[in-house]
């Protein structure tokens, strides 16, 4: 066909479901990185040098003792390996799948320098945790005798669940208030489907809850069904782990055109959709942004059958917050990444977006980003905004005033224990400042659980 050289442009929006043959959906949304079998896992584990003061441990936000767990895999003690992992990171299963390991543990691996190839730490972690979860008796933790203390947690995402598990292990009673109908947070609603196949997020939640002492109340949003003041009164401590509720706007005209969508919202629909063939997807898709959400929406729409998917990012490849590995994955999945261009205006026809005009960008002499004045236009049926999420503080306000201190960037301010400016209130995960990673949220919840437990014991003893 000769039309491939030029992107077709017409005013009829081409957004439709069932672009693929039914079996293609299963194939496209299968495991992005198939699991290691026992033999491969043992062989890979045997490559580990078992470093002293291992740099990988330091690079892991949850400080998993990586050489120890890998050593256990090498001796065919996968259950022991999973115990080591989950003792530091209760969501080690999902982190094994979604962590940007190439920027964390695997980047720190000394094997990079020694042989140019790090140990596949993420895949080994998945092997160990999968082994445990599929075993007859996956419970490796024991809940201590009940303390009679009750803690409220807002948000059943990685931070909240991690905090809940840490507290439940210590014998405290935990109630989680979750606005959505399911637990798991971004693992359930936000991560690309091919990274967590087979309903893994819910299986992991079930494992976490199986310790006992954790109740989840669904459909309970802070500032709506519940208030912080009320939780503080009724519970011995409160942990806030509600993540980021808002999506950044493009800040240009016509953002309300039909077809201009939030990437986060679309991914959420995709993740909850049982039959992907019923999910409408545009033929020509533009994604604005440079993070992993931009990659995730671009690759997933491509996998749903979109013909042209272009990520447009205002700076170069190195400045993208999506890792090199993610960028490469998008490119080999057929996504075009257009660097050094910024949105100028949306083009619409009868209320429906039909394209977008961009301006080329460059750095000025002072290193500041500037438009060159030259423009180009891409036709589009759908434009996805993936330029970051924001923490929405309004549910925490009382009478229109913030009752706890926020950082300059507008997130909840916490100390190294996750304690907020309010007595008895801790916070962690994306609603606080940090790396905005699942693994960082798990650590935030873990650290807070330790601090809360200590505070409650001190209170009792004092």
């Amino acid at each position, binding site marked *: 066909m000769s039309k491939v050289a030029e992107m077709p442009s017409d005013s009829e929006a081409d957004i439709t479901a069932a672009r693929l043959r039914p079996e293609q959906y299963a194939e496209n949304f299968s495991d992005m990185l198939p699991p290691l079998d026992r033999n491969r896992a*043992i*062989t890979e584990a*045997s*490559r580990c*040098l*078992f*470093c*002293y*003061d*291992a*740099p990988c441990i*330091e690079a892991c936000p949850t400080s998993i003792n990586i050489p120890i767990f890998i050593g256990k895999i*090498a001796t065919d003690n996968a259950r022991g390996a999973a115990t080591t992992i989950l003792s530091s990171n209760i969501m080690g299963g999902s982190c094994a799948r979604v962590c940007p390991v190439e920027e964390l543990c695997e980047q720190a691996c*000394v*094997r990079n*320098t*020694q042989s140019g190839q790090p140990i596949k730490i993420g895949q080994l972690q998945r092997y160990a945790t999968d082994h445990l979860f599929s075993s007859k008796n996956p419970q490796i933790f024991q809940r201590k005798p009940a303390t009679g203390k009750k803690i409220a947690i807002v948000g059943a995402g990685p931070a909240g669940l991690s905090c809940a598990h840490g507290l439940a292990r210590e014998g405290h009673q935990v109630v989680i208030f979750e606005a959505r109908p399911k637990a798991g947070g971004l693992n359930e609603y936000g991560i690309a489907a091919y990274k967590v196949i087979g309903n893994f997020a819910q299986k992991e939640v079930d494992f976490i809850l199986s310790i006992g002492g954790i109740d989840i109340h669904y459909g309970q949003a802070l500032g709506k069904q519940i208030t912080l003041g009320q939780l503080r009164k009724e519970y011995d401590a409160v942990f806030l782990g509600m993540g980021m509720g808002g999506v950044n706007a493009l800040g240009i005209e016509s953002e309300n055109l039909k077809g201009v969508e939030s990437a986060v919202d679309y991914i959420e629909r995709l993740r909850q959709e049982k039959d992907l063939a019923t999910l409408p997807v545009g033929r020509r898709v533009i994604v604005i942004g440079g993070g992993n959400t931009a990659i995730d929406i671009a690759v997933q729409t491509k996998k749903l059958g979109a013909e042209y998917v272009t990520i447009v990012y205002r700076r170069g490849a190195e400045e993208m917050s999506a890792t090199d590995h993610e960028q490469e994955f998008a490119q080999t999945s057929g996504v075009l990444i257009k660097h050094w261009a910024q949105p100028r205006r949306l083009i619409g026809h009868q209320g429906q977006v039909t394209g977008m005009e961009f301006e080329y960008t460059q750095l000025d002499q002072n290193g500041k980003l500037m438009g060159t004045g030259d423009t180009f236009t891409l036709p589009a049926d759908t434009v996805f905004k993936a330029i970051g999420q924001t923490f929405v503080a309004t549910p925490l306000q009382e009478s229109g005033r913030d009752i706890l201190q926020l950082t300059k960037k507008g997130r909840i301010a916490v100390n190294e224990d996750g304690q907020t400016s309010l007595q008895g209130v801790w916070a962690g995960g994306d609603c606080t400042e940090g790396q905005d990673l699942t693994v960082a949220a798990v650590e935030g919840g873990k650290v807070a659980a330790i601090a809360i437990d200590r505070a409650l014991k001190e209170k009792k003893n004092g």
Partner: protein
Amino acid sequence: MADLTCRIAGVTSPNPFWLASAPPTDKEYNVVRAFEAGWGGVVWKTLGEDGPPVVNVSSRYGAISYNGTRMAGLNNIELITDRPLDVNLKEIARVKKNWPDRALIVSLMVPCDEQSWQEILKRVETTGCDGVELNFGCPHGMSERGMGSAVGQVPEYIQNVTTWCKKHTKMPVFVKLTPNITNILLPARAAVNGGADAVSLINTINSITSVNLDLMAPEPVVNGIGAHGGYCGPAVKPIALCMVGEIARDPECKNIPISGIGGITTWRDAAEFIALGAGSVQVCTAAMHHGFQIVNDMKDGLSNWMDEKGYKTLDDFRGRAVKNYKNWQDLDMNYDIKAVIDHDKCIQCGLCYIACEDTSHQAIKAERKGLDRIYAVVDEDCIGCNLCMLVCPVDTCITMKRVDNGKPYLTWPNDPRNPAHKKTG
């Protein structure tokens, strides 16, 4: 290009790489494939007397995997050939006729009486083979019938049988020794005294490679139970080298030619055996692991190394390490070396540090500069043991440098700290 021609006990082969008497040399089919691949010789799998059946069981092998490496050690419970004697003899004659330039030695094991040996030698001689190897080493099965290592563990039996064989054949006689004995020199000297033309060693070592923890039986498990087998492969090389060296330097062994066996996997292993006095080398496990093609690199690698060193023939370096193989008391008590860590090569794994800190002399300091880990040797505390160098995963990152302390070569007998010296002095 170096000349790899090998001459040992009157037997010549185009290269020193022989296949040991074992499953790979049980039949004409295998041996021809080996010669096609370029092996210099074979020792045909042990023939027994005509008559009493030899039965082999299933399974026959157990192995050690180490750190992802398979068959680091291999154990077998196979007996001598279970094929009829005349079939073997016909094949041997045909192979020798078709491959006249290759060494073809025939391994033998018959009951411990003169007549049995006389009879088998007569029949083997008709094949035109280059020599015989007396199997006094097999540690399982045949030893229970009073043969194999049951003979090899009693020096006077070795001497008797060797004497009979020398009496009844003109073929060169190789005596294969078992390592399942406290002092290898006793059977070696017995072979020399019996008139052996060469000794071959080591045969396999008594072993249980592993215990099957589900069946609670040693591997390889034969219908619920296991027996000890003979251990070989890379894991046994150090033991074999030591025994070869012992014989090579023993005056009573009178420079008897040695066919070295035990874990030889590469040309480098072969060069080491030859440097310690071996004439030819025999290989089995490496071939069983990777097939006969491995001989290509063995020949090529040995030849390249010899060219690099300026050795034109095997004799140019044969036995060169023997004079440097001494007992501990002859070592220099004043020799002093210290570890040096090359920080440009260091990958910061910390293995040197923790090895020294936990298990040696606390002579490596660990420091942090930001994310960097800096490991440095404390010279005053370093006793030059090599451990850090050995655990370091980077070649030449840790080296041992000699410290010139100005002290003379001092052996233990001359060392004033030696209590025996004090008494006599």
